[in-house]
């Protein structure tokens, strides 16, 4: 139903030596983002600075707003005006944005948010790394809802996943988060830009109901302001034409059901992962983001010394890969879950694995070193 399109890359194809933050900005431009609003915050500000420059070059709009609340609200407004729109932030800003993200979910507004996660809670250690915002990404706003959250492990993936985030947000009409760790945002390494970029544009159908479909997991077409459709958008419970229905249990149940089902029922199409050396592994490391780099190195080293260890890398955090973890759990191995938080994804894995799951938490503002992963696995294998 959506329009997919192959477009020329915004940058000349070839190899680049970018930071993760620069790559996220380039991914946004390549995906067709033409509106950015943000507020300065470490360690994400380089995304905003690059967007300020790049949007000028592609005739887009850049706004430095008065705070993070205004930033995300203006992104929702711009999306309804027909722009692909994004913001980037870090923990404290992400906290401020939660109410409006709920608005984005309930009004089915495509938008992309890049969260360069730092060591929390609160102001925490602003320049240090953490992965503590993953549960916030899922549950930060009130009520029952679904979003999509991706987890990049490299500069290349900051580019690729930001493009993917825009495509998913247009396909499912939902806010999509790129949940990068500070270490990926500030990592500088080689990445490749290919000549063509796969993009997706929102599906439009004149006169159709913008907030309802026949299917209980469907994604309705989305008109834009100024197209003569007399759209009415509200964050209150609404019928399929957007008219407030705050006293009708059936309308509420149907709407809440659909905004959840349109993501959950398409989990298999959304969730991405990568597996390394799983076949004969006695211990499977399940990791994501920057920690998966350390885990990948550790698994490689352990294999060289004859240890049967594998790695499952989660590229999508939300919706959670419950089916995949359940299948992996049935292999009868031990799962080892290193994380730069107090076990946020470990808890999800334990829910679905049905086998022994061993957590490894680190919340000291530093990356998890491969030697620590090696030492722990050697104790449990």
């Amino acid at each position, binding site marked *: 139903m959506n329009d997919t399109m192959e477009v020329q890359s915004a940058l000349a194809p070839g190899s680049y030596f970018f930071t993760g933050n620069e790559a996220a900005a380039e991914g946004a431009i390549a995906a067709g983002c*033409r*509106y950015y*609003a943000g507020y300065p915050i470490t360690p994400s500000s380089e995304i905003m600075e690059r967007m300020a420059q790049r949007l000028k070059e592609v005739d887009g*709009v850049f*706004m430095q*707003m*008065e*705070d993070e*609340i*205004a*930033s995300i*609200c*203006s*992104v*929702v*407004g*711009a*999306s*309804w*005006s*027909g*722009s692909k*729109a994004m913001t980037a932030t870090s923990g404290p800003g992400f906290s401020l944005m939660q*109410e*409006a993200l709920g*608005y984005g979910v309930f009004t089915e507004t495509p938008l992309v948010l890049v969260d360069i996660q730092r060591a929390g809670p609160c102001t925490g250690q602003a320049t240090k790394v953490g992965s503590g915002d993953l549960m916030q990404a899922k549950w930060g706003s009130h009520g029952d809802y679904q979003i999509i959250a991706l987890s990049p492990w490299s500069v290349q993936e900051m580019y690729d996943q930001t493009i993917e985030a825009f495509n998913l947000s247009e396909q499912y009409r939902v806010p999509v988060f790129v949940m990068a760790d500070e270490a990926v945002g500030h990592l500088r390494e080689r990445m490749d830009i290919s000549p063509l970029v796969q993009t997706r544009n929102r599906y439009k159908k004149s006169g159709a109901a913008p907030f309802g479909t026949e299917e209980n997991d469907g994604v309705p077409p989305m008109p*834009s*302001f*100024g197209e*003569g*459709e*007399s*759209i*009415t*958008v*509200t*964050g*209150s419970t609404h019928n399929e*034409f*957007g*008219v*407030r229905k705050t006293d009708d249990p059936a309308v509420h149940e149907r709407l809440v059901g659909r905004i959840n089902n349109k993501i959950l029922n398409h989990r298999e199409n959304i969730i991405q992962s990568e597996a390394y050396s799983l076949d004969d592994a006695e211990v499977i490391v399940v990791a994501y983001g920057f920690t998966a780099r350390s885990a990948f190195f550790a698994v490689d080293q352990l294999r060289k010394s004859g240890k049967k260890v594998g790695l499952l890398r989660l590229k999508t955090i939300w919706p959670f890969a419950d089916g995949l973890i359940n299948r992996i759990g049935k292999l009868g191995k031990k799962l080892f879950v290193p994380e730069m938080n107090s076990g946020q994804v470990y808890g999800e894995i334990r829910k679905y694995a049905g086998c022994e799951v061993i957590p490894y938490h680190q919340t000291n503002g530093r990356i998890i070193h491969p030697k620590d992963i090696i030492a722990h696995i050697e104790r449990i294998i």
Partner: protein
Amino acid sequence: MARDLDAYLRQEVKSTPFCPGCGHGILMNIILRAIADMELDMKNILFVSGIGCAAWIPSPHFNGDTLHTLHGRAIAFATGAKMANPKLKVIVISGDGDLTSIGGNHLIHAARRNTNLTVICANNMIYGMTGGQVASTSPLGTITATTGEGNPYRPFDLCRLVLGAGAEYAARFSVTQPLVLMAAIKKALGMEDFTFIEALSPCPTQFGRRNKADSSVQMLKALMQDCITREQAKGMDKDLLKTKIITGEFHHE
């Protein structure tokens, strides 16, 4: 002269949600008449509102695009919509608590940037929808659900506030002054700047009944007596002046 404003209203939602005696229905009428007089195309207008009684003036009634947003954030949403599509005429209509208390930061920054928005603030000087709590616009001494012994704080002068922040044009009139209020709205809509209209609107249900004006007629009469022009204010006794509301147009100097 009766005018047919049917084309300006969403046909499937005709009844308004306002209490008897509320001024918002009058303001609704005045805004649509201003738009009709100017022959603006509703298909090209986006009405943005926040949360509260006044946010329901445009949403979902007005037959253009309407964006009913979060409490306090209407101007931020409107800024994104306008910047992404500058061809849209964007009008923000919301209440005093919404625009100037929880949303005060967005108000002054939009004025500072001179974003091309017309903000119409329906000022009833109280939080109506939530049950009559004190607002940043409630006069000194007002009895409210949270100031049983009278509001101890001074209210904002909204027009001076936005002019101080850089607004090019601000005007304050009451819904009891419909013709000058409509003229001010038309002037604001004709400008390519950040423009601000403070429309005083009576709330008999929450404000009046606690402050000895519990009929709509009493409240309307009180507004008619209290609203004076700057010319009338000249030379007026200072104590008497404190009980008055100076209405008129205010330009950036």
